[in-house]
């Protein structure tokens, strides 16, 4: 009797064992590759990375200034390309009323000096509102300083301006950070992640330059490794990244932070004379037809 029961149990066991279980997803196996890459990559020391990032920003800014200078002198010679302010009184009035000004109240903002103009404007998606595009990079300290001012400025101009932030991309590192940015957007946590990205890179010395670091970073925001990897490798994220790369090309981005107003006018801290001034020039350009 016992033998028969055992045989029946064996048969039952075989029946259950024949049931197929859900196999793990594609992302499951990637964890070892990610760890391998992370552990074997010869990372530069942190101070070298920060120095390299700062130098990149400075060199890019220097190149921009030189380009503007040469462009400005060519424009003056030709006498036709420089755009004068259409309504200089607004800029003057605002400057006069604003506290703690560093700029001359009477100085109009001049093309080639305070801002530049794209030779091929980027078409606006919504003609009813002024589009402002801000290009940034998380390891860029000036971008971090500018970000808070920009957020306040956006709040004050919600009714008239549509601000879009786009990660600057002119290197592999920047492309990776841009992908992290759009991963956060795909996951619906960009508002929380944006500040945390800056804090991690600017205050905690993290580089976030590999998937393992990002898995840890996103886990602190309540996103599991699987959820992160699914979003990081999703078509939605990669499509956004591709659009960002195209925007970087269209706007010819070479320095951060850079603002573009109405798809035409580019402003950097170097051209405007500071972060607050970038926003004042933007205000002025927004009122320029």
């Amino acid at each position, binding site marked *: 009797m016992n033998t028969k029961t055992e045989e029946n149990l064996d048969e*039952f066991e075989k029946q259950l064992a024949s049931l197929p279980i859900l196999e793990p997803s594609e992302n499951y196996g990637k964890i070892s590759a990610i760890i391998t890459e992370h552990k074997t990559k010869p990372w530069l020391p942190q101070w070298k990375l920060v120095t390299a990032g700062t130098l990149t920003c400075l060199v890019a800014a220097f190149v921009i200034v030189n380009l503007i200078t040469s462009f400005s002198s060519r424009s003056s010679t030709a006498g036709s390309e420089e755009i004068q302010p259409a309504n200089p009184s607004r800029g003057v009035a605002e400057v006069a009323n604003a506290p703690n000004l560093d700029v001359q109240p009477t100085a109009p903002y001049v093309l080639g000096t305070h801002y530049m103009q794209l030779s091929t404007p980027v078409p606006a998606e919504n003609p009813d509102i002024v589009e402002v595009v801000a290009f940034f990079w998380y390891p860029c300290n000036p971008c971090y300083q500018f970000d808070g001012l920009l957020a306040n400025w956006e709040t004050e101009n919600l009714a008239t301006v549509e601000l879009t932030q786009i990660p600057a991309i002119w290197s592999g590192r920047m492309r990776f950070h841009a992908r992290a940015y759009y991963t956060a957007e795909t996951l619906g946590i960009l508002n929380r992640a944006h500040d945390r990205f800056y804090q991690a890179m600017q205050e905690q010395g993290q580089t976030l330059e590999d998937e393992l670091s990002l898995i840890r970073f996103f886990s602190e925001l309540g996103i599991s490794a699987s959820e992160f990897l699914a979003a990081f490798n999703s078509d939605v994220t990669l499509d956004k990244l591709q659009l960002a790369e195209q925007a970087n090309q269209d706007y010819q981005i070479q320095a951060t932070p850079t603002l573009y107003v109405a798809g035409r006018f580019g402003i950097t801290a170097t051209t405007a004379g500071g972060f607050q001034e970038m926003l004042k020039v933007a205000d002025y350009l927004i009122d320029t037809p």
Partner: protein
Amino acid sequence: MSSQSLFEQLVCLFETHKRQLYVAALAITRERSSAEDAVQDAVLAISELKTNPLDLKAYLFRTVRNKALHCIKQSQRFKADTDASSFIDTNNCSAEQIVLASQLTEHLSTLDSNQQQVIIMKLFAGFTFQQIATITESSPNTVASWYRRGLKQLKEKIHEYQD
């Protein structure tokens, strides 16, 4: 032993046992993505260790188990009466298997949690009683007992249902 060798062993262990690790977690979470998360969290946590555990393989499996237990406490996706169909691939089942899977669904959760875990690990990942004993920090005899009693109860319940 250096941290580099720990890392190499960890990657090697993961590659060799990734399905078993997954099923070990699945036995607890009963849900694919949570099981994957538990394994990945465990591997990440161990990759950060400064010292090499005495028995890395056992440590890895136990960590996966702990992460899976943590996962079901944290996750709202898990319910006490989670059905077994969430880890049975019914798309690849025959008609008879679908019936059996639904019965398993209904009755597995009525067993003691140790019995449930042992049955899933033994049936679907081929763990030995010794291996399960290491993971659950029990004796092989206890594990074997959980398994046989659980399987017997399951069979009785399913046959009652069929009758």
